């Protein structure tokens, strides 16, 4: 049983089916110690949610828990209304990992990598048919890499490789995209292209869960913000007026925030961190 509901968030009535994700009192972690505790989190179809918080707050752990990549140590997790342990349609959650490079020991083309995203929908030994190929081509087109379809991913920039990973997730025709730090380490030009891609997906009615350190150009897309700190959810509600600084005003960004901000000077200015802290 959830002990306390997070502030500013009430469960809306289930409309058009079960929520995409329903976590109640969830703890996720590695070894003996949970990295997140007592997490109540619900994601409904059509929402565009940003999961914010400082490094080590537990954002990625929450996502890894709902994707089945980290073990659930307590609470209940339902995906599309089914208990996670019995859920067999994991491809409905399109995962875009935080990865700067997707280059293995053998060269592979954009087409080959994106095709691997189509597989979970296929039975073993079943080759891709014409419809699958159309879906893969459309996914590559959505991220604007059609001209590079036959190029080796090793020849692409980091930002372009990130877009390949988005296309790979789209190839499974997921009901929701789960993206871990989509803009981290991506140059400004590629961030704009990423934002345009996500804008298009949102316009089509896609459900998005974005783990982010800072929102940057993605900010206008977000219609709900969840802020984590020290393994717990501290804010869950609409984006606050005043941008990211507003969440910091709620004493969420101070303390153990150790990473180098030199690379984020623009973002830092908008976070209100360059001056005095609240």
């Amino acid at each position, binding site marked *: 049983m959830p002990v306390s509901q997070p502030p500013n968030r009430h469960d809306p009535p289930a409309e058009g089916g079960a929520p995409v994700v329903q976590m109640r009192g969830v703890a996720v972690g590695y070894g003996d110690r949970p990295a997140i505790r007592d997490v109540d989190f619900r994601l409904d179809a059509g929402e565009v949610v940003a999961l914010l918080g400082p490094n080590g707050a537990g954002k990625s752990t929450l996502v890894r828990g709902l994707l089945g990549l980290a073990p659930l140590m307590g609470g209940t997790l339902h995906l599309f209304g089914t208990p996670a342990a019995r859920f067999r349609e994991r491809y409905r959650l399109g995962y875009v990992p935080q990865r700067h490079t997707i280059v*293995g020991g053998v060269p592979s083309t954009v087409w*080959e990598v994106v095709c691997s995203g189509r597989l979970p929908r296929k039975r073993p030994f079943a080759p891709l048919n014409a419809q699958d190929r159309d879906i893969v081509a459309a996914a590559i087109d959505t991220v604007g890499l059609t001209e590079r379809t*036959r190029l080796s991913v090793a020849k692409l920039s980091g930002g372009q490789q990130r877009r390949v990973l988005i296309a790979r997730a789209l190839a499974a025709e997921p009901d929701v995209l789960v993206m871990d730090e989509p803009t981290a380490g991506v140059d400004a030009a590629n961030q704009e*292209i990423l934002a345009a891609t996500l804008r298009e997906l949102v316009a089509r009615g896609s459900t998005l869960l974005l783990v982010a350190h800072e929102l940057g150009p993605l900010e206008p897309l977000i219609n709900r913000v969840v802020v984590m700190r020290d393994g717990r959810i501290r804010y869950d509600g609409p984006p606050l007026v005043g941008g990211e600084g507003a969440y910091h005003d709620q004493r969420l960004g101070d303390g153990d925030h150790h990473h180098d901000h030199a690379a984020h000077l623009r973002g830092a200015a908008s976070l209100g961190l360059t001056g005095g802290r609240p």
Partner: protein
Amino acid sequence: MTLDLLHYGFMQRALLAALLVGLTAPSVGVYIVQRRLALIGDGMGHVALAGVALGVLTTGQPVLTALVAAVAGAVVIELVRARGRTSGDVALAIMFYGGIAAGVVIISQAPGGTPANLNAYLFGAITTTSRTDLLVFAALAVVVLTMTVGLAPRLFAVSNDEEYARAAGLPVLPINLLLAVITAATVVISMRVVGLLLISALMVVPVATGQLLVGSFRATLALAVGIGLVVSVGGTATSYYANTPSGGTIVLLAVALFAVTASATAARARLRRDTHDEAEDHLHRHGEGCGHPVVPHDDHLDFVHDGHRHATHGAHYDEHGDP
């Protein structure tokens, strides 16, 4: 010179075995190289030697006991890897060296356990492939190729990004176990002609050579199998004429081909390093009436795009500087 080597039954069998090795080793190796586990086949060869020795000592049929030992070793290796413990690395080392040490000690107790005999298992020989061996190798090769070709997309997906495959609901552990088992089968196919200590080279070197020449996974796989066939059959024939151990000859041929290819591609890259500068992230397709002014540039036309000149080059645009 007629192909006098084909007059001998042992040579016919050796060449057929070499053919099977050339087909299977690179087709498994491409996934092993992709996940950067190039040395795992080597470890399975070590473990297989213990099985070989047991077979020599008990039944005189070392191929089947080698298969049992290699498959069991492969499953243990994969389960240790799946647990992801840091101690796993040491556990694997203990298993590999335990395997080869047991093999050496047991085989020394066998009636025919001479050093020359051991050499044949470790480094390959052309005279040792029996008719029964060939039948077993052929059956194993059919299984291996059915998996590496039929399940290619799945093996690729898991080898390319295991975490993604797990999140997408693909059965990662069964696929990894399958790859481990077909790797073990390939080690056994190779034990007569290439030898247990050299088989890993034939899984890795043709793939390394192939990827120097092409940019896609599928083409690398096809080219690696072609190279594998050439060096495996060619090396076996050479060892007949040069009177050298077949495994060593095959691998030297593969390494030589790699060295020549690497030098040639490096030289070509140096020649090509000219002013070619590709326009980054070009989502717009230039053409007649696209709105960008066209200016002549030497022998072709450039489009002026946000202050840069873009020239069509295949599927992308080249930066040709400021107008």
